[in-house]
Protein backbone atom coordinates (compact mmCIF):
# COMPACT_ATOMS: atom_id res chain seq x y z
CA UNK A 1 0.00 0.00 0.00
CA UNK A 2 2.69 2.49 0.97
CA UNK A 3 4.45 1.78 -2.28
CA UNK A 4 1.32 2.47 -4.28
CA UNK A 5 0.61 5.64 -2.42
CA UNK A 6 4.09 6.74 -3.41
CA UNK A 7 3.42 5.87 -7.02
CA UNK A 8 0.26 7.92 -6.97
CA UNK A 9 2.09 10.83 -5.47
CA UNK A 10 4.87 10.55 -7.98
CA UNK A 11 2.40 10.38 -10.81
CA UNK A 12 0.37 13.31 -9.62
CA UNK A 13 3.34 15.43 -8.68
CA UNK A 14 4.72 15.08 -12.15
CA UNK A 15 2.07 16.27 -14.51
CA UNK A 16 -0.11 17.75 -11.91
CA UNK A 17 1.90 19.95 -9.67
CA UNK A 18 4.35 21.75 -11.81
CA UNK A 19 4.75 24.08 -8.90
CA UNK A 20 6.46 21.53 -6.72
CA UNK A 21 10.15 21.50 -6.16
CA UNK A 22 10.98 18.76 -8.63
CA UNK A 23 9.51 20.43 -11.62
CA UNK A 24 9.38 24.09 -11.00
CA UNK A 25 12.47 24.92 -12.94
CA UNK A 26 10.95 23.40 -16.05
CA UNK A 27 7.81 25.33 -15.38
CA UNK A 28 9.64 28.60 -15.11
CA UNK A 29 11.07 28.16 -18.55
CA UNK A 30 7.77 27.01 -19.96
CA UNK A 31 6.28 30.29 -18.86
CA UNK A 32 9.13 32.26 -20.24
CA UNK A 33 8.78 30.72 -23.62
CA UNK A 34 5.14 31.62 -23.65
CA UNK A 35 5.82 35.22 -22.67
CA UNK A 36 5.72 36.79 -26.16
CA UNK A 37 2.16 35.57 -26.73
CA UNK A 38 0.96 36.42 -23.24
CA UNK A 39 -1.19 39.50 -23.10
CA UNK A 40 -0.03 42.36 -21.00
CA UNK A 41 -2.25 43.74 -18.28
CA UNK A 42 -3.47 47.32 -18.67
CA UNK A 43 -1.29 48.41 -15.76
CA UNK A 44 1.70 47.72 -17.94
CA UNK A 45 2.75 44.64 -15.99
CA UNK A 46 4.48 42.01 -18.05
CA UNK A 47 2.31 39.34 -16.49
CA UNK A 48 3.95 36.33 -17.97
CA UNK A 49 6.13 34.44 -15.54
CA UNK A 50 5.61 32.21 -12.55
CA UNK A 51 6.55 33.35 -9.10
CA UNK A 52 9.32 31.10 -7.86
CA UNK A 53 12.45 31.30 -5.84
CA UNK A 54 14.61 31.33 -8.94
CA UNK A 55 13.14 33.70 -11.43
CA UNK A 56 13.57 37.45 -11.08
CA UNK A 57 10.24 37.91 -12.87
CA UNK A 58 6.91 39.61 -12.18
CA UNK A 59 4.56 37.76 -9.88
CA UNK A 60 1.27 37.58 -11.64
CA UNK A 61 0.79 34.29 -13.38
CA UNK A 62 -0.73 34.46 -16.81
CA UNK A 63 -2.33 31.33 -18.09
CA UNK A 64 -2.31 31.38 -21.85
CA UNK A 65 -4.63 29.24 -23.90
CA UNK A 66 -1.68 27.11 -24.88
CA UNK A 67 -0.80 26.46 -21.29
CA UNK A 68 -4.39 25.57 -20.52
CA UNK A 69 -4.32 22.98 -23.24
CA UNK A 70 -1.04 21.41 -22.34
CA UNK A 71 -0.26 22.15 -18.76
CA UNK A 72 -3.39 20.89 -17.04
CA UNK A 73 -2.92 20.13 -13.35
CA UNK A 74 -3.58 16.45 -13.92
CA UNK A 75 -1.39 16.63 -16.99
CA UNK A 76 0.09 13.33 -18.02
CA UNK A 77 3.72 12.54 -18.41
CA UNK A 78 3.83 13.81 -21.96
CA UNK A 79 2.48 17.24 -21.20
CA UNK A 80 5.56 19.11 -20.18
CA UNK A 81 8.19 17.70 -22.47
CA UNK A 82 5.99 18.50 -25.41
CA UNK A 83 5.98 22.18 -24.62
CA UNK A 84 9.37 22.57 -22.98
CA UNK A 85 12.46 22.77 -25.13
CA UNK A 86 15.24 20.40 -24.19
CA UNK A 87 17.56 23.34 -23.60
CA UNK A 88 15.87 24.13 -20.31
CA UNK A 89 17.42 21.15 -18.58
CA UNK A 90 21.01 22.40 -18.04
CA UNK A 91 19.87 25.86 -17.02
CA UNK A 92 17.41 24.33 -14.63
CA UNK A 93 20.08 22.49 -12.75
CA UNK A 94 22.28 25.56 -12.44
CA UNK A 95 19.31 27.43 -11.03
CA UNK A 96 18.76 24.62 -8.57
CA UNK A 97 22.39 24.79 -7.49
CA UNK A 98 22.17 28.50 -6.80
CA UNK A 99 19.12 28.30 -4.56
CA UNK A 100 20.85 25.70 -2.46
CA UNK A 101 23.42 28.16 -1.26
CA UNK A 102 21.31 31.34 -0.94
CA UNK A 103 18.68 32.20 1.61
CA UNK A 104 15.67 33.99 0.12
CA UNK A 105 13.93 36.95 1.70
CA UNK A 106 10.31 36.56 0.57
CA UNK A 107 7.47 39.03 0.40
CA UNK A 108 5.12 38.81 3.39
CA UNK A 109 2.34 40.66 1.51
CA UNK A 110 0.92 41.30 -1.94
CA UNK A 111 1.76 44.66 -3.45
CA UNK A 112 4.20 46.75 -5.47
CA UNK A 113 7.92 46.47 -4.76
CA UNK A 114 10.11 49.56 -4.36
CA UNK A 115 13.85 49.43 -3.78
CA UNK A 116 14.11 52.94 -2.39
CA UNK A 117 12.04 55.15 -0.05
CA UNK A 118 11.31 57.66 -2.87
CA UNK A 119 11.91 57.80 -6.61
CA UNK A 120 14.89 60.08 -6.21
CA UNK A 121 16.62 58.45 -3.25
CA UNK A 122 19.16 55.65 -3.03
CA UNK A 123 18.07 52.00 -2.85
CA UNK A 124 17.83 50.53 0.65
CA UNK A 125 20.27 47.78 -0.30
CA UNK A 126 22.42 46.70 -3.28
CA UNK A 127 24.23 43.48 -4.11
CA UNK A 128 27.03 43.26 -1.59
CA UNK A 129 25.14 45.12 1.17
CA UNK A 130 25.32 43.48 4.58
CA UNK A 131 21.95 43.07 6.29
CA UNK A 132 20.91 42.55 9.91
CA UNK A 133 17.49 41.24 10.97
CA UNK A 134 16.11 44.79 11.40
CA UNK A 135 17.57 46.22 8.17
CA UNK A 136 14.88 47.68 5.92
CA UNK A 137 15.39 46.01 2.53
CA UNK A 138 12.52 47.45 0.49
CA UNK A 139 9.06 48.93 0.54
CA UNK A 140 5.95 47.14 -0.63
CA UNK A 141 2.98 49.32 -1.38
CA UNK A 142 -0.46 47.84 -0.79
CA UNK A 143 -3.70 49.79 -0.56
CA UNK A 144 -1.79 53.10 -0.70
CA UNK A 145 0.28 52.10 2.36
CA UNK A 146 4.06 51.93 2.17
CA UNK A 147 5.14 48.85 4.14
CA UNK A 148 8.79 48.65 5.11
CA UNK A 149 10.08 45.12 4.80
CA UNK A 150 12.83 43.94 7.18
CA UNK A 151 15.58 41.47 6.30
CA UNK A 152 14.89 39.23 9.32
CA UNK A 153 18.21 37.50 8.73
CA UNK A 154 21.91 38.29 8.81
CA UNK A 155 24.12 38.04 5.72
CA UNK A 156 25.25 39.65 2.50
CA UNK A 157 22.86 40.40 -0.35
CA UNK A 158 23.82 38.52 -3.52
CA UNK A 159 20.77 38.70 -5.77
CA UNK A 160 17.84 41.01 -6.27
CA UNK A 161 15.09 39.08 -8.00
CA UNK A 162 12.51 41.82 -8.52
CA UNK A 163 12.66 45.02 -10.54
CA UNK A 164 11.80 48.34 -8.98
CA UNK A 165 8.07 49.05 -9.32
CA UNK A 166 7.13 45.45 -10.03
CA UNK A 167 4.14 43.78 -8.40
CA UNK A 168 4.90 40.89 -6.04
CA UNK A 169 2.69 38.22 -4.56
CA UNK A 170 2.68 36.55 -1.17
CA UNK A 171 5.73 34.39 -0.60
CA UNK A 172 7.60 35.65 -3.65
CA UNK A 173 11.40 35.71 -3.25
CA UNK A 174 12.77 39.26 -3.27
CA UNK A 175 16.45 38.94 -2.37
CA UNK A 176 19.00 36.11 -2.22
CA UNK A 177 21.24 36.43 0.80
CA UNK A 178 24.48 34.58 1.55
CA UNK A 179 24.49 33.75 5.24
Amino acid at each position, binding site marked *: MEELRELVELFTSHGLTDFELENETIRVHLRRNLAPQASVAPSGLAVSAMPSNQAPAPPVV*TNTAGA*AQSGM*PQGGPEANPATTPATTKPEASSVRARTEELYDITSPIVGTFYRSPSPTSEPFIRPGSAVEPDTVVCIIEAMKLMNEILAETTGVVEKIYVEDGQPVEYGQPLFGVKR
Partner: protein
Amino acid sequence: MRRFSKILIANRGEIACRIIWTCKEMGIRTVAVHSEADRDSLHVRFADESVCIGAAPSAQSYLNIPSVIAAAEITNVDAIHPGYGFLAESSYFAEICEACNIKFIGPRSSVIRMMGDKVEARRAMQEAGLPILPGSPDPLQSEEEALTLARGIGFPVIVKAAAGGGGRGMRIVRTEEELGPAMQTASNEAVAAFKNGDIYIERYIERPRHIEIQVLADEHGNCVHLGERDCSVQRRHQKLLEEAPSPALTPELREQMGAAAVAACLRVGYSNAGTIEFLLDEDGRFYFMEMNTRIQVEHPVTEMVTLADIVRNQIRIAEGEPLGYTQQDVIIVGHAIECRINAENPETFAPSPGLITACNLPGGPGVRVDTAIYPGYFVPPYYDSMIAKLIVHARTRELAIARMRRALEAMVIEGIKTTIPLHLEIMDDPEFRAGAYSTKFMEDFKRRNGSK
Protein backbone atom coordinates in the same frame (compact mmCIF):
# COMPACT_ATOMS: atom_id res chain seq x y z
CA MET B 1 -22.70 51.54 -18.19
CA ARG B 2 -19.17 50.27 -17.90
CA ARG B 3 -18.21 46.93 -19.48
CA PHE B 4 -15.75 44.91 -17.39
CA SER B 5 -12.67 43.66 -19.15
CA LYS B 6 -11.12 41.90 -16.15
CA ILE B 7 -12.60 40.50 -12.94
CA LEU B 8 -10.87 39.22 -9.82
CA ILE B 9 -12.56 36.26 -8.17
CA ALA B 10 -12.15 36.48 -4.41
CA ASN B 11 -12.95 32.84 -3.77
CA ARG B 12 -11.76 29.28 -4.36
CA GLY B 13 -13.07 25.81 -5.24
CA GLU B 14 -16.10 25.08 -7.36
CA ILE B 15 -17.66 28.54 -7.17
CA ALA B 16 -14.43 30.19 -8.36
CA CYS B 17 -14.43 27.82 -11.36
CA ARG B 18 -18.14 28.42 -11.90
CA ILE B 19 -17.52 32.17 -12.12
CA ILE B 20 -14.55 31.65 -14.45
CA TRP B 21 -16.76 29.63 -16.85
CA THR B 22 -19.23 32.49 -17.19
CA CYS B 23 -16.48 35.11 -17.51
CA LYS B 24 -14.93 33.08 -20.33
CA GLU B 25 -18.32 32.91 -22.03
CA MET B 26 -18.61 36.69 -21.71
CA GLY B 27 -15.08 37.35 -22.96
CA ILE B 28 -13.99 38.82 -19.62
CA ARG B 29 -10.49 38.07 -18.36
CA THR B 30 -10.17 36.56 -14.88
CA VAL B 31 -7.73 36.81 -12.00
CA ALA B 32 -7.69 34.00 -9.45
CA VAL B 33 -6.39 34.66 -5.96
CA HIS B 34 -5.27 31.71 -3.91
CA SER B 35 -3.66 30.65 -0.67
CA GLU B 36 -0.43 28.68 -0.56
CA ALA B 37 -2.51 25.51 -0.09
CA ASP B 38 -4.42 26.10 -3.32
CA ARG B 39 -1.56 26.47 -5.79
CA ASP B 40 -2.67 23.38 -7.71
CA SER B 41 -6.35 24.25 -7.77
CA LEU B 42 -8.38 24.30 -10.94
CA HIS B 43 -9.46 27.92 -10.39
CA VAL B 44 -5.79 28.88 -10.54
CA ARG B 45 -5.28 26.72 -13.63
CA PHE B 46 -8.24 28.05 -15.60
CA ALA B 47 -8.07 31.74 -14.69
CA ASP B 48 -6.12 33.99 -17.03
CA GLU B 49 -3.93 35.24 -14.18
CA SER B 50 -3.38 34.26 -10.57
CA VAL B 51 -1.94 35.82 -7.45
CA CYS B 52 -0.92 34.06 -4.24
CA ILE B 53 -2.39 36.16 -1.43
CA GLY B 54 -1.29 34.37 1.72
CA ALA B 55 -0.87 31.28 3.81
CA ALA B 56 -3.35 28.41 3.95
CA PRO B 57 -5.65 29.57 6.79
CA SER B 58 -8.55 31.64 5.42
CA ALA B 59 -7.87 34.51 7.82
CA GLN B 60 -4.44 34.95 6.23
CA SER B 61 -5.62 34.64 2.60
CA TYR B 62 -9.24 34.55 1.42
CA LEU B 63 -10.44 36.66 4.36
CA ASN B 64 -7.44 39.00 4.25
CA ILE B 65 -8.96 42.17 2.80
CA PRO B 66 -5.70 44.12 2.26
CA SER B 67 -4.23 41.17 0.34
CA VAL B 68 -7.27 40.78 -1.88
CA ILE B 69 -7.42 44.50 -2.60
CA ALA B 70 -3.66 44.66 -3.27
CA ALA B 71 -4.04 41.74 -5.70
CA ALA B 72 -6.85 43.64 -7.44
CA GLU B 73 -4.65 46.72 -7.64
CA ILE B 74 -1.58 45.02 -9.09
CA THR B 75 -3.67 43.18 -11.68
CA ASN B 76 -5.74 46.27 -12.44
CA VAL B 77 -9.17 44.61 -12.49
CA ASP B 78 -12.47 46.40 -13.03
CA ALA B 79 -14.47 44.38 -10.54
CA ILE B 80 -14.35 41.71 -7.84
CA HIS B 81 -16.75 38.77 -7.70
CA PRO B 82 -16.86 37.52 -4.11
CA GLY B 83 -18.69 34.19 -4.72
CA TYR B 84 -20.32 32.92 -1.50
CA GLY B 85 -18.81 32.70 1.99
CA PHE B 86 -15.48 34.43 2.77
CA LEU B 87 -15.96 38.15 1.98
CA ALA B 88 -19.24 37.83 0.04
CA GLU B 89 -21.37 39.42 2.75
CA SER B 90 -18.78 41.73 4.31
CA SER B 91 -20.19 45.23 4.01
CA TYR B 92 -16.75 46.48 5.08
CA PHE B 93 -15.12 44.75 2.10
CA ALA B 94 -17.77 46.09 -0.27
CA GLU B 95 -17.14 49.57 1.12
CA ILE B 96 -13.38 49.31 0.57
CA CYS B 97 -14.01 48.17 -3.00
CA GLU B 98 -16.25 51.18 -3.52
CA ALA B 99 -13.54 53.46 -2.03
CA CYS B 100 -10.87 51.94 -4.31
CA ASN B 101 -13.09 52.36 -7.37
CA ILE B 102 -13.25 48.60 -7.92
CA LYS B 103 -16.80 47.45 -8.60
CA PHE B 104 -17.97 44.96 -5.97
CA ILE B 105 -20.28 42.49 -7.73
CA GLY B 106 -23.12 42.66 -5.26
CA PRO B 107 -25.50 45.22 -3.79
CA ARG B 108 -24.44 48.53 -2.24
CA SER B 109 -22.52 48.10 1.04
CA SER B 110 -25.35 49.79 2.97
CA VAL B 111 -27.81 47.12 1.83
CA ILE B 112 -25.37 44.33 2.75
CA ARG B 113 -24.97 45.89 6.19
CA MET B 114 -28.73 46.11 6.72
CA MET B 115 -29.32 42.50 5.70
CA GLY B 116 -26.39 41.32 7.82
CA ASP B 117 -28.05 42.55 11.02
CA LYS B 118 -30.89 40.09 11.68
CA VAL B 119 -32.97 42.47 13.75
CA GLU B 120 -32.61 45.34 11.31
CA ALA B 121 -33.23 43.06 8.31
CA ARG B 122 -36.41 41.74 9.89
CA ARG B 123 -37.64 45.26 10.61
CA ALA B 124 -36.77 46.54 7.13
CA MET B 125 -38.38 43.62 5.36
CA GLN B 126 -41.50 43.86 7.49
CA GLU B 127 -41.74 47.53 6.50
CA ALA B 128 -41.16 46.45 2.90
CA GLY B 129 -44.26 44.28 3.17
CA LEU B 130 -42.93 40.80 3.95
CA PRO B 131 -44.76 38.76 6.62
CA ILE B 132 -42.60 37.91 9.62
CA LEU B 133 -43.19 35.26 12.27
CA PRO B 134 -45.58 36.73 14.90
CA GLY B 135 -43.72 37.30 18.18
CA SER B 136 -42.38 39.78 20.71
CA PRO B 137 -40.38 42.48 18.98
CA ASP B 138 -38.30 43.15 22.14
CA PRO B 139 -37.11 41.09 25.14
CA LEU B 140 -39.97 40.10 27.43
CA GLN B 141 -40.36 42.05 30.68
CA SER B 142 -42.82 39.76 32.55
CA GLU B 143 -44.79 36.55 32.47
CA GLU B 144 -48.03 38.53 32.12
CA GLU B 145 -46.72 40.34 29.04
CA ALA B 146 -45.61 36.98 27.59
CA LEU B 147 -49.02 35.40 28.23
CA THR B 148 -50.85 38.23 26.53
CA LEU B 149 -48.51 38.02 23.56
CA ALA B 150 -48.74 34.22 23.38
CA ARG B 151 -52.54 34.37 23.36
CA GLY B 152 -52.35 36.80 20.48
CA ILE B 153 -49.85 34.64 18.56
CA GLY B 154 -51.63 31.37 19.31
CA PHE B 155 -50.03 28.21 20.73
CA PRO B 156 -47.62 26.54 20.28
CA VAL B 157 -45.05 29.27 20.76
CA ILE B 158 -41.32 29.07 21.21
CA VAL B 159 -39.34 30.85 23.91
CA LYS B 160 -35.91 31.85 22.62
CA ALA B 161 -32.82 33.45 24.13
CA ALA B 162 -32.19 36.83 22.47
CA ALA B 163 -28.48 36.02 22.37
CA GLY B 164 -29.16 32.39 21.53
CA GLY B 165 -28.10 29.84 19.00
CA GLY B 166 -27.54 26.13 18.63
CA GLY B 167 -30.78 25.16 20.39
CA ARG B 168 -29.71 26.42 23.82
CA GLY B 169 -32.14 28.66 25.69
CA MET B 170 -35.04 27.40 23.57
CA ARG B 171 -38.31 25.95 24.86
CA ILE B 172 -41.44 24.95 22.95
CA VAL B 173 -44.64 25.87 24.81
CA ARG B 174 -47.92 24.21 23.89
CA THR B 175 -50.22 25.35 26.71
CA GLU B 176 -50.67 28.47 28.84
CA GLU B 177 -49.59 26.58 31.98
CA GLU B 178 -46.22 25.65 30.49
CA LEU B 179 -45.31 29.24 29.64
CA GLY B 180 -44.07 30.49 33.05
CA PRO B 181 -41.81 27.50 33.81
CA ALA B 182 -40.49 27.45 30.23
CA MET B 183 -39.54 31.13 30.42
CA GLN B 184 -37.70 30.49 33.68
CA THR B 185 -35.74 27.52 32.33
CA ALA B 186 -34.92 29.23 29.05
CA SER B 187 -33.74 32.37 30.83
CA ASN B 188 -31.58 30.34 33.23
CA GLU B 189 -30.05 28.42 30.33
CA ALA B 190 -29.47 31.66 28.47
CA VAL B 191 -27.67 33.21 31.45
CA ALA B 192 -25.50 30.10 31.77
CA ALA B 193 -24.73 29.88 28.08
CA PHE B 194 -24.61 33.50 26.91
CA LYS B 195 -24.43 35.52 30.18
CA ASN B 196 -27.62 37.24 29.01
CA GLY B 197 -31.01 36.13 30.26
CA ASP B 198 -33.08 38.11 27.73
CA ILE B 199 -35.78 36.01 26.10
CA TYR B 200 -38.51 36.58 23.53
CA ILE B 201 -41.34 34.48 22.09
CA GLU B 202 -42.40 33.66 18.55
CA ARG B 203 -44.96 31.44 16.83
CA TYR B 204 -43.66 27.87 16.71
CA ILE B 205 -44.02 25.95 13.43
CA GLU B 206 -43.98 22.21 14.01
CA ARG B 207 -42.85 21.17 10.57
CA PRO B 208 -41.71 24.17 8.56
CA ARG B 209 -40.20 24.04 5.11
CA HIS B 210 -37.24 26.18 4.14
CA ILE B 211 -38.29 27.87 0.90
CA GLU B 212 -36.19 30.57 -0.71
CA ILE B 213 -36.97 32.87 -3.62
CA GLN B 214 -34.25 33.75 -6.10
CA VAL B 215 -34.42 37.35 -7.25
CA LEU B 216 -32.49 39.38 -9.81
CA ALA B 217 -32.60 43.16 -9.43
CA ASP B 218 -30.76 45.72 -11.53
CA GLU B 219 -29.69 49.28 -10.65
CA HIS B 220 -32.58 50.78 -12.60
CA GLY B 221 -35.49 49.53 -10.53
CA ASN B 222 -36.18 46.34 -12.47
CA CYS B 223 -36.59 43.14 -10.51
CA VAL B 224 -37.77 39.61 -11.33
CA HIS B 225 -37.86 36.37 -9.39
CA LEU B 226 -36.79 32.97 -10.77
CA GLY B 227 -39.12 30.93 -8.58
CA GLU B 228 -38.19 29.08 -5.42
CA ARG B 229 -35.83 26.45 -4.10
CA ASP B 230 -36.79 24.00 -1.39
CA CYS B 231 -33.85 23.61 1.00
CA SER B 232 -35.62 21.78 3.81
CA VAL B 233 -33.22 18.83 3.78
CA GLN B 234 -30.72 20.14 6.30
CA ARG B 235 -28.51 18.78 9.01
CA ARG B 236 -28.01 21.28 11.86
CA HIS B 237 -28.94 24.18 9.59
CA GLN B 238 -26.48 22.98 6.94
CA LYS B 239 -28.22 22.38 3.64
CA LEU B 240 -27.54 18.95 2.19
CA LEU B 241 -29.80 18.89 -0.86
CA GLU B 242 -31.98 21.41 -2.66
CA GLU B 243 -34.64 21.21 -5.32
CA ALA B 244 -36.66 23.43 -7.61
CA PRO B 245 -39.57 23.73 -7.81
CA SER B 246 -40.63 22.88 -4.25
CA PRO B 247 -43.06 19.94 -4.02
CA ALA B 248 -45.01 22.06 -1.51
CA LEU B 249 -45.80 25.11 -3.63
CA THR B 250 -48.82 25.68 -5.82
CA PRO B 251 -48.45 28.05 -8.79
CA GLU B 252 -50.54 30.56 -6.82
CA LEU B 253 -48.32 30.39 -3.73
CA ARG B 254 -45.21 30.67 -5.93
CA GLU B 255 -46.64 33.76 -7.55
CA GLN B 256 -47.56 35.23 -4.17
CA MET B 257 -44.17 34.58 -2.55
CA GLY B 258 -42.31 35.71 -5.66
CA ALA B 259 -44.27 38.94 -5.92
CA ALA B 260 -43.72 39.67 -2.21
CA ALA B 261 -39.97 39.06 -2.58
CA VAL B 262 -39.72 41.31 -5.63
CA ALA B 263 -41.70 44.10 -3.98
CA ALA B 264 -39.48 43.96 -0.89
CA CYS B 265 -36.28 44.10 -2.97
CA LEU B 266 -37.54 47.13 -4.82
CA ARG B 267 -38.42 48.84 -1.53
CA VAL B 268 -34.93 48.41 -0.05
CA GLY B 269 -33.16 49.44 -3.28
CA TYR B 270 -31.63 46.03 -3.84
CA SER B 271 -29.46 45.28 -6.85
CA ASN B 272 -27.66 41.99 -7.69
CA ALA B 273 -28.84 38.40 -7.51
CA GLY B 274 -30.29 37.74 -4.08
CA THR B 275 -32.16 35.16 -2.10
CA ILE B 276 -34.98 35.71 0.33
CA GLU B 277 -35.38 32.82 2.73
CA PHE B 278 -38.81 32.02 4.09
CA LEU B 279 -40.27 29.55 6.54
CA LEU B 280 -43.40 27.97 5.14
CA ASP B 281 -45.84 26.50 7.63
CA GLU B 282 -48.18 23.53 7.19
CA ASP B 283 -51.01 25.84 6.12
CA GLY B 284 -49.09 27.53 3.35
CA ARG B 285 -48.32 30.73 5.27
CA PHE B 286 -44.81 32.06 4.76
CA TYR B 287 -42.57 34.19 6.96
CA PHE B 288 -39.41 36.10 6.14
CA MET B 289 -36.30 34.60 7.75
CA GLU B 290 -33.35 36.36 6.17
CA MET B 291 -31.93 37.65 2.93
CA ASN B 292 -28.66 36.52 1.36
CA THR B 293 -27.13 39.28 -0.70
CA ARG B 294 -24.90 37.03 -2.84
CA ILE B 295 -24.97 34.02 -5.10
CA GLN B 296 -26.06 30.87 -3.24
CA VAL B 297 -24.41 27.46 -3.31
CA GLU B 298 -27.69 26.02 -4.62
CA HIS B 299 -28.18 28.50 -7.49
CA PRO B 300 -27.72 25.75 -10.16
CA VAL B 301 -31.13 24.17 -9.53
CA THR B 302 -32.69 27.49 -10.48
CA GLU B 303 -30.41 27.76 -13.52
CA MET B 304 -31.48 24.29 -14.65
CA VAL B 305 -35.22 24.97 -14.54
CA THR B 306 -35.05 28.52 -15.95
CA LEU B 307 -32.02 28.26 -18.31
CA ALA B 308 -30.82 31.52 -16.73
CA ASP B 309 -27.13 32.10 -16.01
CA ILE B 310 -27.25 33.81 -12.62
CA VAL B 311 -23.55 34.73 -12.56
CA ARG B 312 -23.90 36.38 -15.99
CA ASN B 313 -26.85 38.35 -14.64
CA GLN B 314 -24.81 39.44 -11.61
CA ILE B 315 -22.02 40.70 -13.84
CA ARG B 316 -24.34 42.54 -16.25
CA ILE B 317 -26.17 44.13 -13.33
CA ALA B 318 -22.87 45.26 -11.78
CA GLU B 319 -21.88 46.77 -15.12
CA GLY B 320 -24.99 48.89 -14.81
CA GLU B 321 -26.96 47.17 -17.54
CA PRO B 322 -30.74 46.91 -17.20
CA LEU B 323 -32.15 43.37 -16.87
CA GLY B 324 -33.76 43.66 -20.29
CA TYR B 325 -36.54 41.19 -19.60
CA THR B 326 -39.57 40.93 -17.36
CA GLN B 327 -41.30 38.40 -15.14
CA GLN B 328 -43.26 37.00 -18.11
CA ASP B 329 -40.02 35.96 -19.77
CA VAL B 330 -39.17 33.68 -16.84
CA ILE B 331 -40.44 30.16 -17.51
CA ILE B 332 -39.84 27.20 -15.22
CA VAL B 333 -39.37 23.90 -17.07
CA GLY B 334 -39.04 20.52 -15.40
CA HIS B 335 -37.53 19.69 -12.03
CA ALA B 336 -33.97 19.99 -10.71
CA ILE B 337 -32.23 18.53 -7.66
CA GLU B 338 -28.80 19.31 -6.26
CA CYS B 339 -26.81 17.06 -3.92
CA ARG B 340 -23.90 18.62 -2.09
CA ILE B 341 -21.01 16.19 -2.17
CA ASN B 342 -18.92 16.83 0.92
CA ALA B 343 -15.59 15.33 1.92
CA GLU B 344 -17.15 13.90 5.06
CA ASN B 345 -17.91 10.61 6.69
CA PRO B 346 -21.55 10.11 5.58
CA GLU B 347 -22.51 8.68 9.00
CA THR B 348 -20.74 10.96 11.44
CA PHE B 349 -20.23 13.98 9.18
CA ALA B 350 -16.60 14.15 10.34
CA PRO B 351 -14.48 15.94 7.71
CA SER B 352 -12.40 13.71 5.46
CA PRO B 353 -9.69 15.76 3.74
CA GLY B 354 -6.94 14.02 1.78
CA LEU B 355 -5.77 12.80 -1.60
CA ILE B 356 -8.37 11.89 -4.22
CA THR B 357 -6.83 8.79 -5.70
CA ALA B 358 -9.47 8.23 -8.38
CA CYS B 359 -12.55 10.03 -9.52
CA ASN B 360 -15.22 9.47 -12.12
CA LEU B 361 -17.75 12.25 -12.61
CA PRO B 362 -21.15 11.34 -14.05
CA GLY B 363 -22.44 12.64 -17.38
CA GLY B 364 -25.20 11.91 -19.85
CA PRO B 365 -28.62 13.53 -20.13
CA GLY B 366 -29.70 16.11 -17.57
CA VAL B 367 -26.59 15.92 -15.39
CA ARG B 368 -24.47 18.90 -14.33
CA VAL B 369 -21.39 18.72 -12.14
CA ASP B 370 -19.91 21.84 -10.55
CA THR B 371 -16.59 20.96 -8.98
CA ALA B 372 -12.90 21.77 -8.74
CA ILE B 373 -11.66 18.26 -7.97
CA TYR B 374 -9.68 15.96 -10.25
CA PRO B 375 -7.87 12.64 -9.82
CA GLY B 376 -4.83 13.43 -7.72
CA TYR B 377 -6.31 16.55 -6.10
CA PHE B 378 -5.58 16.92 -2.41
CA VAL B 379 -8.64 18.16 -0.48
CA PRO B 380 -7.07 20.63 1.98
CA PRO B 381 -8.25 20.59 5.59
CA TYR B 382 -8.48 24.38 5.83
CA TYR B 383 -11.73 25.15 4.07
CA ASP B 384 -15.33 24.06 3.63
CA SER B 385 -15.81 20.34 3.11
CA MET B 386 -18.02 20.69 0.01
CA ILE B 387 -16.03 19.37 -2.95
CA ALA B 388 -18.68 19.04 -5.65
CA LYS B 389 -22.29 19.74 -6.49
CA LEU B 390 -24.17 17.15 -8.48
CA ILE B 391 -27.23 18.63 -10.16
CA VAL B 392 -29.82 16.85 -12.30
CA HIS B 393 -32.70 18.11 -14.41
CA ALA B 394 -35.63 16.10 -15.77
CA ARG B 395 -39.21 16.57 -16.84
CA THR B 396 -40.71 15.56 -13.51
CA ARG B 397 -39.60 15.23 -9.88
CA GLU B 398 -39.88 11.44 -10.07
CA LEU B 399 -37.63 11.31 -13.14
CA ALA B 400 -35.20 13.74 -11.50
CA ILE B 401 -34.90 11.45 -8.46
CA ALA B 402 -34.23 8.42 -10.71
CA ARG B 403 -31.65 10.45 -12.60
CA MET B 404 -29.94 11.61 -9.42
CA ARG B 405 -29.80 8.03 -8.23
CA ARG B 406 -28.00 6.79 -11.32
CA ALA B 407 -25.71 9.82 -11.40
CA LEU B 408 -24.73 9.21 -7.76
CA GLU B 409 -24.05 5.56 -8.62
CA ALA B 410 -21.75 6.59 -11.46
CA MET B 411 -19.93 9.19 -9.32
CA VAL B 412 -16.87 7.53 -7.87
CA ILE B 413 -14.50 9.41 -5.59
CA GLU B 414 -11.80 7.36 -3.92
CA GLY B 415 -9.20 8.12 -1.30
CA ILE B 416 -11.53 10.18 0.88
CA LYS B 417 -14.99 9.64 2.34
CA THR B 418 -17.91 11.53 0.83
CA THR B 419 -21.61 12.05 1.39
CA ILE B 420 -22.50 10.12 -1.81
CA PRO B 421 -23.82 7.06 0.14
CA LEU B 422 -26.02 9.31 2.29
CA HIS B 423 -27.56 10.95 -0.78
CA LEU B 424 -28.23 7.52 -2.30
CA GLU B 425 -30.16 6.59 0.85
CA ILE B 426 -32.11 9.83 0.74
CA MET B 427 -33.07 9.16 -2.90
CA ASP B 428 -34.54 5.82 -1.77
CA ASP B 429 -36.34 7.26 1.25
CA PRO B 430 -40.15 7.03 0.92
CA GLU B 431 -40.77 10.38 2.65
CA PHE B 432 -38.30 12.18 0.44
CA ARG B 433 -39.78 10.52 -2.63
CA ALA B 434 -43.26 11.58 -1.53
CA GLY B 435 -42.00 15.17 -1.26
CA ALA B 436 -43.78 15.53 2.07
CA TYR B 437 -40.85 16.61 4.19
CA SER B 438 -39.93 19.52 6.44
CA THR B 439 -36.72 20.83 8.02
CA LYS B 440 -37.17 17.96 10.48
CA PHE B 441 -36.49 15.52 7.64
CA MET B 442 -32.92 14.61 8.51
CA GLU B 443 -33.77 14.03 12.19
CA ASP B 444 -36.61 11.70 11.18
CA PHE B 445 -34.48 10.09 8.50
CA LYS B 446 -31.66 9.35 10.93
CA ARG B 447 -34.16 7.90 13.39
CA ARG B 448 -35.77 5.70 10.74
CA ASN B 449 -32.39 4.53 9.49
CA GLY B 450 -30.82 4.54 12.94
CA SER B 451 -30.07 0.85 13.08
CA LYS B 452 -27.56 1.08 10.27
